[in-house]
């Protein structure tokens, strides 16, 4: 069965297709590995697990980085 489902990514609906692995999502977004942190359904996913964790329909994913602030 082809992979095609919706997740919520940073508060917006997002379509996952072809690759359900978390690493696929991060690489697809061209994010720099050392600069971001990821939560799935409020659980932090350590970098070492990005390749083994797969996304499921309806997952709530947060990807954060650092921005200017005091």
């Amino acid at each position, binding site marked *: 069965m082809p992979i095609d489902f919706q997740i919520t990514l940073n*508060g917006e609906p997002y379509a996952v297709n072809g690759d359900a692995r978390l690493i696929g999502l991060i690489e697809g977004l061209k994010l720099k590995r050392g*600069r971001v*942190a990821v939560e799935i359904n409020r659980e*932090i996913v350590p970098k070492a697990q990005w390749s083994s964790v797969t996304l499921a329909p309806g997952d709530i994913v947060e990807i*954060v*980085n650092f*921005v200017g602030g*005091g």
Partner: protein
Amino acid sequence: MKDDTFELAGKRYKSRLIVGTGKYRDFAETRAAIEESGAEIVTVAVRRVNITDPNKENLLDYIDPKKWQILPNTAGCYTVEDAVRTCRLAREAGVGDLVKLEVIGDQATLFPDVPATLEAARILVKDGFKVLPYITDDPVACLRLAEIGCAAVMPLAAPIGSGMGIRNPFNLRIILEQAKVPVIVDAGVGTASDAAEAMELGCDGLLINSAIASAKDPIAMARAMRLAVEAGRLAYGAGRIEQKLYATASSPLSGLIR
């Protein structure tokens, strides 16, 4: 005052000025101001990545975490849960375990929610974080935070971004007298004289963002703040003269021509 380095959370720094990275026109200006300030620790905020434009430049492309100690904050957090969650995400993003804890209690003043800050600090210290809490200039709250195991306390001088300067030097003096951890004034500084005043009181460090970033010339203000922090610290160490109501002549009273 020969070896006047600043020790914070087990690390030594030459500069006692910590600067923020918010409100600058662009990243180039952010970096130039930080360079000019001489700061070795810079605060950053944790926010969702820009999904629609992932090629957008990143703050850390300009502020190399190998060169500067990155201090993530929990700005915008109003609950213990959000603050703790933000710190854990920041640590996971790979800049270490030093965090600036803010749990805001009121949108208009951005004053901290003191009980929530204490609770979040307890959780974070237990979780291995080196916690630098933003707090009101309340000596008892500062004592409690130190007891919990915070690496420093960071009382505000005036509301964040207000530029009102040191509104209650007397409370700061009490906090300093009682402190068993470094005291870093965080928020409220408007200009160089405020920075010098905080350092003359004996504060260990100073955290400034708006006063530099929102100045007409942020680079020049960054330099002014660096010099003011150094001057204030030197004056503190040198020991100021007593304030007296009446004059004391500087020139000899004898040998005058008649």
